[in-house]
Structures are given as C-alpha cells and as structure tokens.
C-alpha cells in the first residue's frame, strides 16, 4: 500500500518509491520551514528518464533499485554538508525508486538560499554528489529487449 505524500506533509530527504512524492509536494514542504523567510531564491533540479542511453541505445524503461539504509545515510550527509554552506537555508534531495517510463521523474533536488549565487553553486554540488555517492542502481531496458 503506497503512502503518497500530500501538500503540507513534511518531506524528509531520502529514497522514496515512485509516485510517493511529487515535486509540488516537495516544494511545499521546503517552504514550510520557517527559515524560508530568510531565502530570496529557491533553485531546483529534476532528473528524468532520457530516451537514449549514454551509448545511444533507445530506452523502453528504466528501473531504479536502492539500498535504502545506506542511500538515506548518504543523502542526509550530502544535505548536512550543503546546509553548512554560507547563505544556504535548506535543501531537499529525493531519489525515487521503481520502474519508470521515458521522461518520468527520478530525482528532485531543491535548494533554498539567501541569494541566488550561493544557491546555484550549492545545487550543482548537491547534484554532482548524489550522482556519485548514493547507493542506487539503474537498469535500462531497451527497445531491442536487451537490458543493462
């Protein structure tokens, strides 16, 4: 049984099942933080499924698997580090798991900052870090019925 989050719910950063959280709900949660009053900017990144793999093969679907316990630790560490950057008010980092079609959402990162300059930088750092550090794996299923 899914436990889909709604606007107004507190969304913690971490791993969620597909459709458990959406972007508007995440943004609503970010803005529920009282400290948001100190923010002049909210920057966001949304990772989605591309129709071609890095090698150029046509993708039919993409499955994300996650080691929740480790991935959540890693996500929380990234968020803790980002919050220490001067001018950063808050960050939310969500990675979804499950089976996804082309263009469906996989990742949400949202950073609230006092000014846009540090916000852009922090967002970039967060995205580059989650790509390397969180314990998730993707499996692309291709139109020719192969997978890797």
């Amino acid at each position, binding site marked *: 049984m899914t436990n889909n989050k709604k606007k107004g719910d507190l969304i913690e950063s971490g791993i969620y099942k597909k459709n458990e959280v959406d972007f508007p709900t995440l943004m609503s949660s970010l803005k529920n933080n009282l400290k948001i009053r100190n923010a002049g900017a909210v920057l966001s990144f949304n*990772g989605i499924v591309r129709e071609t793999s890095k090698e150029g093969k046509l993708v039919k679907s993409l499955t994300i698997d996650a080691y929740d316990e480790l991935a959540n630790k890693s996500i929380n560490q990234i968020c803790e580090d980002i919050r220490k950057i001067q001018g950063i008010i808050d960050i939310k980092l969500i990675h979804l798991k499950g089976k996804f079609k082309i263009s469906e959402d996989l990742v949400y990162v949202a950073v609230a900052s006092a000014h846009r300059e540090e916000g852009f930088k922090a967002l970039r750092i967060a995205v580059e870090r*989650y790509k390397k550090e969180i314990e*998730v*794996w993707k499996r692309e299923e291709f139109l020719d019925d192969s997978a890797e």
Partner: protein
Amino acid sequence: MLYFADFKTITQKSEEYFNHNHPRNVGEIVKILIKKYPQLKNILLEAKTNKIKDTISIAINHSIIKNPNPRSESLQKDDILAFLLPISGG
C-alpha cells in the same frame, strides 16, 4: 544477504537467509553464493585471480567495510551482508 541490481536479477531475490552453519567470513559466503548462483562469479570475482573485484563494495550491517582483504572479514550470526556494484543513479 541483501541483493541489489544485478545480484537481485540473478538470484531473483531481494534477500536471503543463511541460517545453518553460518559462514564465518565473507570468503565463505562468496563460495556459497557462487556455488548456488554460478552467474555471480563474473560479477563478483576477477577472472584471473579470483579476488573480489575492487569495484565491489561490501556492506555489513548497513555500513561499508574497508578491508584490503575483504574475504577475511569475519561475520557474526545475524549479520546483514550486501555486495554492491558501482553506483549508477538517476
């Protein structure tokens, strides 16, 4: 054992219990796994040396271990073990 990614695909399981004569170290678990799931050999071990590949991370009780000789890492009853492929997120 917890299985993720290709380990899950090959074993067709997300977890498995080894209750009887529990393996005393990672090396023993590797032998048991490869005997039960021969396809795991190519994923886990270097072809020439049979060492666990450097690209494989090993987690025990939800923490990554750092042991230059991972096969020797000892295991206790009820330990939770996972072999992890290189990360590839969305």
